[in-house]
């Protein structure tokens, strides 16, 4: 078990897919064994494709009665031994929050793709937004950490869906793929390689399912039906899953470990790419679809001799705080364009010593490159 290379399910080559279709194919490549969901714009096409493709590859697909049932059935499926995924958008993501906390606390591997649309509430159901970023961090009650990825292309929706399964199985956590309507419905070319690297869960028969010697450890993951006599509960529990709901030290130790298993491995989890940052006076920090506009805008302005660089966050949670701290000490200003009222900008302000300028756009439209260029010209 652990990491291993396996053949891709699709024959290697170029494909012309929508983002939603790429998510479906990414799940198949990652050997997802169970997907449940409920129709919702703009994520529905992933379900439609999986309902056909899962039949071909021998995985189980369920359209459930709501998003709550969808994620709960995924948790059941995960403990029954399958890699499990659910797909939704903002309203469904809201409904799933209680179960996300359950998955975190029971250390259940799970992938959740949120094709974000413009909220709050039903909002602009067919338009793009990026308003679920803080919800991915703190949507469920209590203290916890999950992992959230931010793909910017159809290619990355495929790659990051596979990565999300690997992280979920490796760390026994829910992992969120924070897609956006603009990438979910975008059609573009993507490449499928001959092989994919997958992480398959570690089993250790007879070992405590929630126990580890390390204070930031990830216990092995057993499954139902193998005589382990598992006890799984959303209540505070000891290493064998036995409820311990009034013991201060057991609760502190568990909640702390669930934080540390992510935080102490941030370097292993966090991915980003950077462009033109070496001599930059202004850094544009961006993610998701907006990064496409930002990079285009910065390349135009570089042509005019303006010293601007780009940092694209591929991982939103855990947050690349140290990286932002470093960049913030080298540039005069950090500019953050995003399709919300400044959710990531707020996080950046915690780490950057320089001036932080937020540009939040909540129109249900992508942030246009010209808008970013205009804003940057004002800053320079």
């Amino acid at each position, binding site marked *: 078990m652990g990491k291993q290379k396996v053949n891709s399910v699709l024959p290697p080559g170029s494909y012309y897919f929508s983002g939603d279709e790429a998510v479906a194919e990414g799940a198949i490549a990652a050997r997802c*064994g*169970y997907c*449940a969901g409920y129709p919702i714009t703009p994520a529905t096409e992933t379900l439609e494709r999986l309902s056909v493709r899962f039949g071909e590859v021998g995985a*189980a697909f*369920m359209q*459930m*009665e*709501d998003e*709550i*049932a*969808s994620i*709960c*059935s*995924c*948790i*059941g*499926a*995960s*403990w*029954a*031994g*399958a890699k*499990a995924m659910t797909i939704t958008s903002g309203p469904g993501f809201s409904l799933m929050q*209680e*179960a996300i906390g*359950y998955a975190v606390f029971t250390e259940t591997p799970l992938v959740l793709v949120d094709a974000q649309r413009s909220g709050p509430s039903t909002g602009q159901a067919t338009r793009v937004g990026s308003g679920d970023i803080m919800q991915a961090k703190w949507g469920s009650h209590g203290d916890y950490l999950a992992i959230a990825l931010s793909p910017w292309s159809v290619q990355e929706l495929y790659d990051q869906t596979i990565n999300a399964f690997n992280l979920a199985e490796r760390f026994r956590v829910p992992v969120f793929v924070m897609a956006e309507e603009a990438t979910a419905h975008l059609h573009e070319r993507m490449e499928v390689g001959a092989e994919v690297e997958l992480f398959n869960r570690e089993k250790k028969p007879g070992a405590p399912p929630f126990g580890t010697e390390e204070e930031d450890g990830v216990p092995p993951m057993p*499954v*139902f*039906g*193998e*005589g*382990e*006599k*598992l*006890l*799984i*509960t*959303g*209540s505070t529990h000891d290493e064998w*899953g*036995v*409820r311990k709901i009034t013991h201060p030290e057991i609760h502190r130790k568990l909640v702390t470990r669930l934080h540390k298993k992510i935080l102490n491995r941030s370097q292993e989890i966090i991915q980003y790419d950077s462009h033109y940052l070496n001599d930059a006076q202004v850094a544009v920090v961006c993610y998701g679809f907006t990064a496409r506009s930002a990079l285009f805008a910065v390349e135009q302005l570089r042509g005019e001799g303006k010293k601007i660089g780009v940092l694209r966050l591929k991982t939103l949670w855990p947050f690349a705080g140290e990286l932002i701290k470093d960049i913030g000490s080298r540039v005069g200003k950090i500019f953050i364009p995003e399709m919300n009222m400044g959710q990531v900008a707020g996080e950046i302000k915690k780490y950057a010593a320089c001036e932080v300028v937020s540009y939040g756009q909540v129109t249900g439209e992508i942030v246009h490159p010209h808008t970013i260029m205009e804003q940057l010209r004002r800053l320079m």
Partner: protein
Amino acid sequence: MVRELEKYLRPGIGVTTYCPGCGEAILQGLILRAIDELKLNMDDMLFVSGIGCAAWIPSPYFNADALHTLHGRTIAFATGAKMVNPKLKVMVISGDGDLADIGGNHLIHGARRNMDMTVICANNQNYGMTGGQVCATTPEGALTMTTHQGNPFRPFDLCRLVKAAGAVYVARYAVTQPVAMVRGIKKALQTEGFAFIEAVTPCPVQFGRRNKLGKPADMLKDLMSRCITEEKAETLSPEELKGKIITGEL
């Protein structure tokens, strides 16, 4: 519980959480009796429960895989596990508040899909664990901590609800009918598809106390006097049927 069934209990977990006189301890023994008589292997079984008194029947007591889930979502969790591993013998055990109030939608959809599982609903007519509030099975007029002038609403007939939704085996027994209950649970376990058992059980501490139903023994006697068969019910007038509980396979 009799000594011979103790082999099904998880070692090291001694005390139960039931209040004095709770009928769910009887139900716990009857479920194990049915499993024992069918000679089922506990390693093949998955017990799924929600939140509430009855959710503690399998977890942590039964020495088998037990998934103690969120409030109301048992059937959804169980569906995912069963879809991935059809060899699992899945039994959902939870209360009326869990399965029929907050989880009512999942209950009817589980029945509609005819998912292969046995669902045992311990019906104590109120929310016991949170201190005795009204729920979807509380009789009209009954006093609870949130209906001080009597429940103004009608209760669900859970068996008719689940039957109408498509369950292939539906039965109702009270914990005062141990032989029939064990027979019913065995049949449910042997049924392929969605099997539902409503286990009527007294809650002396939360429900009985507020409705002046007497001591636990009085409540058991009262339950015995009110259980009738479907055949018997057909001979009674609507007036005579008031307060009666129709038991048997429905």
